């Protein structure tokens, strides 16, 4: 039985003018439908020629403010098509699901600020455009540092233009060390890198616990901030990829030895107690001003050049020093690693030519000059490294002493998976939940299972 006019008699007392007849209802429904469609088209406009180049970034302040200034400067130079910066949620730093779904849905940006170490992965996925065909093609990368060039390339083709880079170092709070009566001369970079055991000895003199058994002050937590698997693996001289065998090598003996040192360090102090002290700092959304290094409860930590700006903002009075990443044995060469970002053009970009002009400017000399000066990051535009005016004294330590010895993560088409597996193994080891050798062997097996189909993998440079 239907439910139209025959099923339900209309009330007799309604006037014809107010009657909700089927025709009126349908008219109304059609009107609402049209309004909904118009509304939807307003929400997701189809960008036409003449509209700005849309640039997505997951940056947060203070770097975001610098990038906004760069876009404004670019627009001030009256380009044929101006650019518009759109901030996307910070959770999207290496998780590019927003980019992937938008591109797939045909509403992706023209330019995307992409963590450079996953350019190869996204290029292999087919999300990014090959830039070879644009004016300048591969030669555009010639002015960038070789490792950044390699990271922006996949299968011999450029898929991104490198932007900034960075390096990791050991920061130490001189005030805290002096208050504890510790001689910190060994940490002075003029004396070269300290050994990990020397750092441990200094740190142990600062550890304090409260009545509840929790650490209230610590000298050093190996895994806080940029104390990553790569930091230690490189420090011990480990290699993470064997190009000839097309094999990831997290089980490299040096990497295992590095993990073992961290395992032992945490075991001696109580892995769970160390975790209780350090893990909140690794939670998403943890406010930087509450970081134990900034509040004066952690004397040393490994972090990057961007910390100079953060300390200037949150702890302007702190007397601190920056030195080389420690070494396993006296006399060893220190190693660090560099990361950084790039500008890539996703598939389906509405204005590819204008987008490429914008990318060239921001990733080129003018854009990187502003960014280096104002954000305390390092440029990948090689010539800028020689410009002394861009660097403060502390910043110069990164550009002149650390960048030349920096290594990089292998730019693999399974870069995100490799990072995740190394990190899971790293956590299991510093929590003393797994032995280094077993954890790294498991990581290797899982990553290699995905890498196999991309072999052989050629890494530029």
């Amino acid at each position, binding site marked *: *039985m*239907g*439910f*139209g006019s*025959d*099923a339900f008699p209309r009330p007799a007392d309604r006037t014809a003018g107010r009657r909700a007849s*089927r025709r009126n209802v*349908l008219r109304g*429904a059609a009107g609402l439908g049209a309004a909904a469609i118009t509304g939807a088209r307003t929400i997701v406009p189809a960008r036409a020629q003449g509209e700005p180049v849309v640039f997505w970034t997951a940056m947060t302040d203070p770097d975001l403010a610098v990038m906004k200034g760069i876009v404004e400067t670019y627009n001030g130079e009256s380009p044929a098509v101006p650019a518009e910066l759109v901030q996307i949620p910070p*959770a999207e*730093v*290496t*998780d*590019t*699901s927003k980019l*992937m*779904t938008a*591109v*797939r849905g045909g509403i992706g940006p023209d330019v995307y600020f992409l963590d450079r170490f996953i350019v190869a*992965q*996204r290029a*292999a*996925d*087919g*999300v990014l455009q090959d830039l070879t065909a644009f004016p300048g093609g591969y030669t555009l990368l010639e002015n960038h540092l070789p490792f950044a060039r390699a990271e922006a390339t996949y299968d011999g083709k450029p898929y991104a233009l490198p932007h900034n880079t960075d390096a990791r170092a050991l920061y130490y709070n001189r005030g805290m060390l002096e208050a504890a009566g510790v001689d910190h001369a060994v940490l002075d970079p003029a004396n070269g890198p300290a050994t990990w055991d020397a750092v441990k000895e200094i740190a142990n003199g600062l550890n304090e616990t409260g009545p*509840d*058994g*929790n650490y209230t002050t610590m000298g050093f937590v190996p895994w806080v901030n940029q104390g990553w698997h790569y930091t230690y693996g490189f420090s011990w001289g480990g290699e993470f990829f064997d190009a000839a065998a097309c094999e990831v090598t997290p089980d490299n003996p040096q990497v295992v030895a590095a993990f073992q040192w961290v395992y032992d360090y945490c075991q001696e102090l109580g892995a*769970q107690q160390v*975790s*209780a*002290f*350090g*893990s*909140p700092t*690794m*939670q*998403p*959304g943890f406010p930087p001003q509450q970081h134990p290094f900034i509040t004066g409860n952690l004397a040393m930590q490994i972090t990057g050049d961007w910390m100079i700006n953060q300390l200037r903002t949150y702890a302007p009075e702190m007397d601190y020093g920056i030195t080389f990443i420690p070494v396993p044995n006296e006399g060893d060469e220190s190693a660090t690693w560099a990361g950084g970002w790039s500008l890539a053009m996703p*598939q389906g970009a509405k204005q590819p030519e204008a987008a490429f002009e914008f990318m060239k400017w921001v990733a080129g000399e003018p854009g990187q000059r502003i960014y280096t000066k104002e954000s305390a990051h390092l440029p990948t535009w090689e010539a800028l490294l020689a410009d002394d005016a861009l660097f403060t004294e502390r910043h110069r330590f990164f550009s002149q002493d650390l960048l030349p010895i920096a290594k990089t993560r292998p730019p693999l088409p*399974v870069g*995100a*998976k490799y*990072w*995740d*597996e190394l*990190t*899971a193994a790293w*956590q*299991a080891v510093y*929590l003393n*939940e*797994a032995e280094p050798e077993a954890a790294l062997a*498991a990581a290797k097996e*899982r990553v290699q*299972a*995905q890498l196999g*189909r991309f072999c052989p993998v050629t890494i530029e440079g």
Partner: protein
Amino acid sequence: MATQTAAAYPAPRRPPTARRFALGRTERRNLALGLLFISPWIVGFVAFLLYPFIYTIQISFTQYSGFGDSLPIGWANYQQLLRDDLFWTSLYNTLFYTGLAIPVGVVVAMALALAMAQPLPEVPVYRAILYLPSIIPAFALSFVFVALLDPARGIFNQALLALGLPNVNWFGDPGVSKLALVILAQFGAGQAALIFLAGLKGIPQPLYEAAMLDGAGTWRKFLNITLPMMTPVILYDLILGLSQGIQIFTQIFVIFGNDPPGAPANSTLAYVPYLYNNGFRYSQMGYAAALAWVLFLITLVLAVVIFRWSSRWVHYDTD
């Protein structure tokens, strides 16, 4: 029957089955109108449920990044799944969480409902307070939860210490991280408690009066009247809880982050976050689709098991 029909009416021009579904002009119009009115739902169902449903079956048999061409690989994704230790880890974590969060949730919801049902003048205020955490979005609640369970400063751990219990590193200790999620789930128990409250209100009072005349105490009344009469509601809550528990995602994403998913040391790597990461981080859409289908089957089997098991303890007789 057929003979009688043939005798009483002229011979049908169409087969009986076709005639049964034959519609008159008005009925056809009404059907068209009816379909028109529900067309937004039909379009939504086809576009967002039926199409993805079929599409995921198709891509689960391919190697596909989400872009470009897909490569047919037969059952390889399903075979890989059996060998993938992280699949088993994520399944274990999810079942551990669901298996603990649901029964604890039933107890908490029942306690809340009993509290809400007390004949006190200020009970509307208590109901509002008890229900309040349930209306906070999971995203916001998770952030609050991080502050509450902070091992150094969180009020929850301070309470544990005050009671002479050991300090617990909820977010850094793989041994207890899943328990943190179970505790968090109880903040949403108000939703179930409201349904339980409605169930409690539906229990006929004469049952309690008869029990009282027979000398039954509070506990005896709860065990012999309240609990059996509430079993249909408990079953509903179990099924709903199963579906929600198995799909846990937001809380893990917010509390433990996604770099990598499942911190610490894969102890909170639940099924859906693992599926999400395969699809969107590792660009293995085909494998993610296979994971989705296996999850669907697991949920289906568990729901059937609960239904069959429920015939032993659910009491539907309200006479």
